[in-house]
């Protein structure tokens, strides 16, 4: 199981990194999104992927760590998701502004090669 | 009463929705649900949708039953087409001229036709009332016209009058 997840983190991350190095702004934004998926899963994986643990406590009890998933990586992922969302939106708008002002969608402005 | 509940049906729906979602009929959720239902009605009123007047609840039930049966039947039919190795069928477009104009009724018809596998709502011309359908198994076009016009449109015309 762990291997599947590790591999999927790798695939997401690799695709994201590949796109990160592409010349078009849109590729970049997709790449950043894929990378942030990878990173979110990565953070999550640092809580060791517990299978079949209940997600919330029984009311009125203190949770036993052996019974529950590590909640902290989850909280971190949530924050990371939100921040990732915000920055993606911002990058999109900057990308649009750059497109409008430079006339092209190359990351460096009007460069035409590859 | 109008100002409190501009869309009573929707408000009622929201109230039920809330209770279902809360999985409880304790006083707390009921009160919150009621407030939310009213607020939801107001929110909808902001958008100024056409007023819906629904009659004949009996007919609604009958229509629902009919649709239920049709869905099961067409599910099986379409599943068979999908899974059979060499399906003997003739898919195609067909036009039906509807008398329905009421948007909610049209939406309901769209739901019905979509939920029924085998028919796909493609395009509707609100002026002339032409509906373009795609049918997966267009063996008898007249049969389909009958189904749509008689089985679904007629009751809908009654309900949303």
């Amino acid at each position: 199981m762990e291997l599947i997840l590790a591999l999927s983190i790798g695939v997401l991350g690799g695709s994201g990194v590949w796109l990160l190095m592409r010349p078009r702004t849109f590729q970049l934004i997709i790449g950043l999104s894929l990378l942030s998926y990878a990173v979110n899963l990565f953070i999550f994986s640092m809580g060791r992927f517990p299978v079949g643990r209940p997600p919330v406590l029984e009311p009125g009890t203190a949770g036993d760590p052996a019974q529950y998933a590590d909640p902290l990586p989850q909280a971190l992922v949530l924050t990371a998701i939100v921040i990732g969302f915000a920055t993606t939106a911002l990058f999109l708008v900057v990308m649009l502004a750059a497109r409008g002002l430079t006339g092209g969608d190359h990351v460096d402005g009007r460069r035409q090669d590859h | 009463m109008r100002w409190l509940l501009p869309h009573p049906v929707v408000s009622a729906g929201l109230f039920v929705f809330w209770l279902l979602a809360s999985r409880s009929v304790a006083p707390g959720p009921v009160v919150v649900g009621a407030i939310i239902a009213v607020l939801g009605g107001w929110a909808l009123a902001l958008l100024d949708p056409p007023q819906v007047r629904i009659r004949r609840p009996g007919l609604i039930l009958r229509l629902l039953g009919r649709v239920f049966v049709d869905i099961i039947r067409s599910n099986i039919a379409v599943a068979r087409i999908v899974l059979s190795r060499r399906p003997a069928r003739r898919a195609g477009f067909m036009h039906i001229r509807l008398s329905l104009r009421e948007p909610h009724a049209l939406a309901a018809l769209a739901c019905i036709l979509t939920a029924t596998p085998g028919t796909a709502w493609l395009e509707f011309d609100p002026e002339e009332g032409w509906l373009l359908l795609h049918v997966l198994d267009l063996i008898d076009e007249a049969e389909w016209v009958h189904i749509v016009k008689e089985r679904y449109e007629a009751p809908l015309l009654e309900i949303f009058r």
Partner: protein
Amino acid sequence: MSLVVLSWSLFAAQIMLGLAFGCTAWRVLHGPRAQDRVVGLDILYINGMLLLLTFGIRTGTDLYFEAALVVALLGFVSTAALAKFLMRGEVIE
């Protein structure tokens, strides 16, 4: 006995849904046209939602219901936006 049957059926159902997920994903991947991908994505969401529901049954908690509810609601929004974009060239006119 019935427990074994139910467990296995749930497992089988999840495998089937997983396969369905794969089939749909293939359509999304392969296209050939944008509308195919959009329809594919819509169904991908449905398949995903069914997976969540069966997972809920399997684990006996109805906490995943919210996730399913949200999938049902939002799968629609994103595919509708995609379709609208295809249809009108922009999502909001």
